[in-house]
């Protein structure tokens, strides 16, 4: 089940006498992952092989390139989506919503906290799916603004 890219048998052999250290990286199964198989051009004569192999450390390792690829792609798409949405909210949204009186109140609700509920409560009560999403989005935006005010402006929390 493991693809070619996903397994390796890596042997690290330290310097020995006058032979410098070497790293061997082969594509063997776990069973064959030992010094005698992996170190192919054996750098030492036959009677030194055992001593040399005692020094080497062979490790069989697995990974999943698919997991890596999928994770990175998901990550990039989430970042991309967030960026796009942020730009949308920053640039496009105000243009569309200019005439909406609600947006107005949303921007200076500092002094109208007590009136807010009645006002923002209504759009959330819409009937079509679109209206509901709209309402939820409005509520969310208000919530984030509230958070932003608490954390970034008033420094009441998380500082």
């Amino acid at each position: 089940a493991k693809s070619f890219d996903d397994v390796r048998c890596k042997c690290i052999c330290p310097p020995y006498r006058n032979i410098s250290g070497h790293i061997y990286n082969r594509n063997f199964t776990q069973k064959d992952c030992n010094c005698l198989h992996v170190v192919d051009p054996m750098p030492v004569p036959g009677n030194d092989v055992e001593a040399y192999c005692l020094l080497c450390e062979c490790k069989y390792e697995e990974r999943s390139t698919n997991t890596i690829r999928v994770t990175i792609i998901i990550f990039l798409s989430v970042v991309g989506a967030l960026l796009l949405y942020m730009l949308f909210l920053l640039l496009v949204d105000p243009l569309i919503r200019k005439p909406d009186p609600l947006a107005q109140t949303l921007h200076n609700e500092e002094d109208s906290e007590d009136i807010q509920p009645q006002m923002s409560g209504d759009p959330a009560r819409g009937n079509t799916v679109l209206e509901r999403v709209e309402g939820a989005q409005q509520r969310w935006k208000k919530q984030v603004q509230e958070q932003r005010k608490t954390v970034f402006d008033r420094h009441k929390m998380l500082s």
Partner: protein
Amino acid sequence: MSDFWTKSGRAVVFDDDDMVDIAGATLDFSSTDDVPPLSSDMAWSRAGANGTGPGSLMDPLEDPVPGLGTYEDFNTIDWVREKSKDRDRHREVRVRSRRSTAALLHSISDAFSGWLLMLLVGLMAGALAGGIDIAAHWLTDMKEGICLDGFWFSHEHCCWKSSETTFKDRDRCPQWQTWGELITGTSEGAFSYILNYLIYIVWALFFAFLAVTLVRAFAPYACGSGIPEIKTILSGFIIRGYLGKWTLITKTVTLVLAVSSGLSLGKEGPLVHVACCCANILCHLFTKYRKNEAKRREVLSAAAAVGVSVAFGAPIGGVLFSLEEVSYYFPLKTLWRSFFAALVAAFTLRSINPFGNSRLVLFYVEFHAPWHLVELVPFIFLGIFGGLWGALFIKANIAWCRIRKTTRLGRYPIVEVLAVTAVTALVAYPNSYTRMSGAELISELFNDCSLLDSSQLCGYLQVGQTGIGNSLADRPAGPGLFTALWQLALALLFKMLITVVTFGMKVPSGLFIPSMAVGAIAGRLLGVGMEQLAYYNHDGLIFKGWCTPEADCITPGLYAMVGAAACLGGVTRMTVSLVVIMFELTGGLEYIVPLMAAAMTSKWVADAFGREGIYEAHIRLNGYPFLEPKEEFEHSSLAVDVMRPRRSDPPLAVLTQDSMTVGGVEALVESTRYSGFPVVVSQESPRLVGFVLRRDLLISIDNARKRQDGVVGASLVVFSEHPPAQAPDGPPPLRLRGIMDLSPFTVTDHTPMDITVDIFRKLGLRQCLVTHNGRLLGIITKKDILKHMAQIANRDPDSILFN
């Protein structure tokens, strides 16, 4: 009592569970509305909680009103009430289960829902942690170059299959190209270096900018480490949206960005926050946990354990961390479930295998080198260093955060982040020990120098030996090691300074890794020093007997580990959990004594400078209503000294049980800002009957005015069981016994405050009434206690901001 936040007393409740889904129009929108739906659960739970028992589950006269029994944002829950509610619910489920098979199945699924939830939390948090690990690794390496085999490979994975690595430069392979190499075609030369340097800084700034902008745009609550807030939430505070799904997404994404930008921060603390977000979101799938704030906090306790479990690959350590550091209320059932969830998460992470070596953490080590009793002396020195650094760090960081909070600096969070990132990148790049990520640095420092290693830190001189196996004797330091030591010393200085300004910026930032890095550097320096001392003084007084020339007597990696534990202990004041986490990281019981000696010294030294750890310090800085469960209240004041009203205050605002009109009640409620009112027999005989919450009172009166016929301003409000005799032509009375808490907690005026504080802590009270010989005298709220404690400690009592 509540003078800051009840201003928005009647505002909309923004629930953090707006399950918006375009496809799912069937989803439960109504539960997020300001008027929650009338659920039958709540109906009987209110009735039950008020002691009418299951025999009369529904009093037809007391039609329960939606919104009762919920809490406002930034308020503290009443644990007793919540737990009682849950027990009532459970009782009801059990009673019903005897009636039908469906109800029986429901009761069984209800009983196992806790375990299922734990399983889901473990799976989700483990998967997220794996994703964060992979993405952060890749993005960190992105600053330096790119893999030609596939852009999604990090440096290590790029060279994973390469057979062209050499023993000396084992992380270099042709598939991986630094930006300089890619552009200039050569990896040598000043131009390539400068190009790399510049691109490194640009990427770092870009990542940091992205992180702080996303946090600001989508979830301001996602910044910081999150542990202070989670501690406060677990103690009963409500911060709506803090554990919501936007916070989860934003924190996950920006955590990767922040870590990758090379800032001196770690991902361990935020992982706890991420795990708690997962738990909170998954709680919405189960009625039992969605509806009950206390039960939900049990799950959150377990989630904190899960967070640490995946952060360090230490399930037992995670559970102990949750128990020792984070949790407030931790029943034994939670212990077992936390353990289960922590294990599930660890196994999920292992199956994702983010590092490709079946380790859960980058800096996992497997030592078996022995240590000698004499070495406890340097270990204790490391403990002292850790304690000193921890205390200093807390003081400096809090001072800096206070500046940020109060001065103009706080107005430019994005600029601040960019500036710190720029400085970090500029200074960090030239020094290879600061350029690498914190976890890699720690891994390198923990590593023991076997013959197989070729890093600079292992640059010892070969002293003509043909050692077989890994038992290496101590060796004299070579030039490579000396260079490394200098670089490490500089790195230590830099890390110590930059971490102070980094922690608390408006990006997700954990403190574990930077603290451990500081400690590990210091420990490694001391370790190498000791090693050289031992090498050149084999026959010296202290080394004689255990440092023969052939034996491997000093392990610098162990010193690094002890140093890391000491610094982490100094900053967070963790004890048992710290030792267990380090024990699980190394997998050897034999190092528990050095670790414990260091952790203990560090805690004692740091405590001498100030008793609170970094999380408590931040809780206090922000004025959260957190009653520290670890510290004893030691002043000898009495309840009467703390209660409101004080001597000079106007008398306590009380309701009488059967002599006030609706108009009178409304006037009282409007004219005060208290969040609850005691109900007494009469103004003349203030014997306590019960306690009514402001919110419940308002909702009920509103509701009655809307629905119930004939309720006008002149209607009597009746809290007693039997309404008083009345003129037959008068308006019908409004009966509100149903919303009254018939069992308010009381203490006598002579109760010492230490006992009162204990009651508040152990039972999780929000308020407690004070009586004298059966007569109501006043009220003590959690905030009053915190203010009193602040006063005793000569701090400003007004720093306590929330209820």
